[in-house]
């Protein structure tokens, strides 16, 4: 029973209406472009998307947004896609804005079995208005609950056939954290190699976190996103 899937839709078969989906990437960098494209071609709705941003206008997650498949977005920087604001104004999407560090840390907490944690980030600001405040050793913190998801779609550089992952430069970003925080983790990679080809010290995401592996068909290059 191999983790490797050649059909993107087969890999995405686990995604259901109403699911919460984590989507890796910082803008297009390290985003699972092939799997996002797959989602845009899948008949699914009412998704909650946890991702730093919701793509750009008409690109990546922006397509999914315009297809009205996204019920709610949880992220730190929606400004990169003006359509998000328009949808929000019209009441067509719920948004939860989190500081970028809180977004990352809450997913790490979710992956590590932590129910929630106290951070100084956001204390005294609008983003903390409805959040519990607590003083610990004389310092004010706010409570942030863990974030988890049904499915994470992420991007890595290489996977071995067991599912061990290594990443490429700043295309790492949220991907390793999301790999820990979802029930099912689907990764797209530049290359699938044999287990002996990744050294035990360089593996960032151990295979126990990874359920399905696909080869990237859409790749970010200097010329933009191209078909691989």
């Amino acid at each position, binding site marked *: 029973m191999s983790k490797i899937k050649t059909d993107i839709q087969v890999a995405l078969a686990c995604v259901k209406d109403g699911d919460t989906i984590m989507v890796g990437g*910082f*803008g*297009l*960098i*390290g985003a699972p472009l092939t799997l996002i494209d797959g989602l845009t071609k899948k008949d699914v709705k009412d998704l909650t998307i946890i991702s*730093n*941003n919701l793509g750009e206008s008409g690109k990546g997650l922006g397509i999914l947004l315009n297809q009205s498949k996204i019920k709610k977005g949880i992220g*730190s*920087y*929606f*400004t*990169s896609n003006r359509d*998000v*604001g328009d949808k*929000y*104004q019209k009441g067509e999407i719920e*948004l939860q*804005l*989190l*500081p*970028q*560090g*809180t*977004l*990352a*840390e809450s*997913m*790490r907490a979710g992956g590590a079995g932590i129910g929630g944690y106290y*951070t*100084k*980030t*956001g*204390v*005294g*600001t*609008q*983003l903390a208005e409805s959040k519990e405040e607590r003083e610990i050793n004389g310092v004010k913190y706010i409570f942030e609950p863990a974030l988890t998801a049904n499915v994470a779609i992420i991007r890595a550089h290489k996977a071995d056939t067991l599912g061990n992952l290594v*990443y*490429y*430069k*700043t*295309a*790492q*970003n*949220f*991907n*390793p*954290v999301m790999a820990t925080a979802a029930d099912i983790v689907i990764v797209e990679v530049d290359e699938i190699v044999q287990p002996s080809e990744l050294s035990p010290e360089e593996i*960032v995401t151990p295979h126990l976190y990874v359920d399905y592996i696909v080869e990237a068909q859409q790749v*970010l*290059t*200097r010329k933009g996103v191209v078909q691989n």
Partner: protein
Amino acid sequence: MNVLDKKAIQHMIAARTAKELTGPCTVNLGIGIPTLVAEYIHDDKVFLHTENGLLGVTDVEEEDIDPNLVNAGKLPVGEAIGASYFNSANSFAMIRGGHIDVAILGVLQVDQTGVIANWAVPGKNIMGVGGAMDLLVGAKKVILAMTHTNKDGSSKILKECTYPITSTRSVDMIITELAVFKVVDQSLRLIELMPGVTIEEVRAKTEADFIAD
């Protein structure tokens, strides 16, 4: 204000800001003018951190641009010798855990106690906060590198912020094309005028109260 075009003003602010950085130290540069500061750092013990996952940011030649190697503004950067990569949780653990010495940020507004607003404008949708709040609570020292006024000539250094604040923490220093202020005991102290600028000009273009020695 001297007759300088926008770009020249930005570079002037960036160059002055770079003088505040003496190694060894780890520095995070925000988007906009702060990013330009990198061009004026010539101390190889000033290590640049970018919150999207790299310690050891350096400039990159056009022919070496890698679309998967960028800074927090998604601009292409290079990898310094001794650089390392890490995921977002680890990167923000560095920031939030107090391991970044200096953050250089741009702002929409700063008040006379050094509290800033740089993530939201009332009446517009609140759509992006990014790493601003994390840097404010985490960096040991925060320096603003900003134009003194808005396009319409109104002061960005105010008695009180009218936009939502980014943190209750006061920044440590404000550097504009007109002057340099230190924030001491939650009040602004003018410590330097930029070349050719008079204190009268600074007073005229600053809504906030400040102390000039």
